[in-house]
């Protein structure tokens, strides 16, 4: 049996969509997570890619979940589209799409560095680490793990020094790469170079993590402020869709109309 999300990824590709696996499924592909409950993709911000994905999802009988229409007009605001369906295998499949993932400083560079092998297209490790700097505490274990296997074990000082999340491994990285550490502006690294007390380094790591989590929360709050009555209206619409079994293309058409309000309230 195969990972249904990887099979779906291939269907998107065959339909002509330019997509990259990201977040949880990228962690599965990179071998540091055994499981992810949904599939996240970064989509090229073009109607052709969005339409190709919609075509595949229509064939699976997918329904929209709360989110914006899968169209560049909304996706370029940093908003996301969500769907779900029951696969032939009986798996409940949930899919999330964006074109402008948070915290990625240079989108074109991310596309250029994407890994494209064996029918898999996946974001690079550094982009994955940046994506994972979310408001969820558990994501920082993933960041630490990526920094260990790709940075410390993979002999990449920048990844190790910038993203390791615990005292022991970070102090080992600082000892191993003193020159790179001296050039690193991370507070915990600076403290280790000054032989500061362990408690100070641990505090610096905790504060840094909390800063990242708060940043992500502020980003989400800002996105939600765009929504207005959209959540309530979407829920009503979805109830109607379920009653009358509205197919995805019609759901998409209706959602495009509903989501115009978001465009009017954008900052």
């Amino acid at each position, binding site marked *: 049996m195969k990972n249904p999300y990887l099979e779906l990824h291939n269907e998107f590709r065959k339909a002509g969509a330019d997509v990259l696996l990201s977040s949880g499924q990228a962690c599965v592909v990179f071998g540091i997570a055994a499981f992810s409950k949904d599939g996240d993709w970064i989509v090229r911000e073009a109607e052709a890619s969005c339409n190709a994905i919609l075509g595949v999802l229509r064939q699976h009988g997918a*329904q929209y979940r709360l989110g914006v229409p899968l169209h560049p007009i909304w996706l370029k605001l940093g908003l996301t589209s969500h769907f779900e369906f*029951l696969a032939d295998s009986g798996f409940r499949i949930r899919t999330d799409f964006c074109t402008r993932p948070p915290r990625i400083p240079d989108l074109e560079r991310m596309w250029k560095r994407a890994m494209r*092998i064996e029918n898999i297209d996946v974001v690079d490790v550094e982009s994955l680490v940046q994506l994972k700097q979310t408001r969820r505490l558990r994501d920082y274990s993933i960041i630490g793990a990526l920094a260990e296997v790709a940075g410390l074990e993979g002999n990449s000082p920048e990844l190790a020094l910038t993203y390791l999340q615990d005292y022991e491994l970070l102090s080992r990285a600082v000892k191993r790469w003193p020159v790179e550490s001296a050039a690193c502006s991370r507070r915990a690294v600076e403290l280790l170079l000054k032989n500061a007390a362990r408690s100070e380094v641990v505090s610096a790591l905790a504060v840094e993590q909390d800063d990242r989590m708060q940043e992500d929360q502020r980003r989400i709050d800002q996105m939600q402020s765009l929504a207005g009555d959209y959540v309530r209206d979407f829920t009503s619409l979805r109830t109607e869709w379920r009653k009358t079994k509205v197919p995805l293309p019609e759901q998409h058409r209706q959602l495009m109309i509903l989501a115009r309000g978001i465009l009017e309230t954008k900052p």
Partner: protein
Amino acid sequence: MTDSEIMAVSRRLLAPYVIPAECPYLSEDQQELSRQNLEGRSAWMAEWLLLADSAPHAFDITT
């Protein structure tokens, strides 16, 4: 990091590799997973999905 450096690091993780036994972040399951090739990792994920779907709280989108 240069693009080629980050791509090389990423490529290495797509092939089987070993997570150190003392890794503070990852479980034994994940250590075993990292030793698999992509096909093995795909099968592993499918197995986990089966377990998750058989859980009593599994969500049914048809209702």
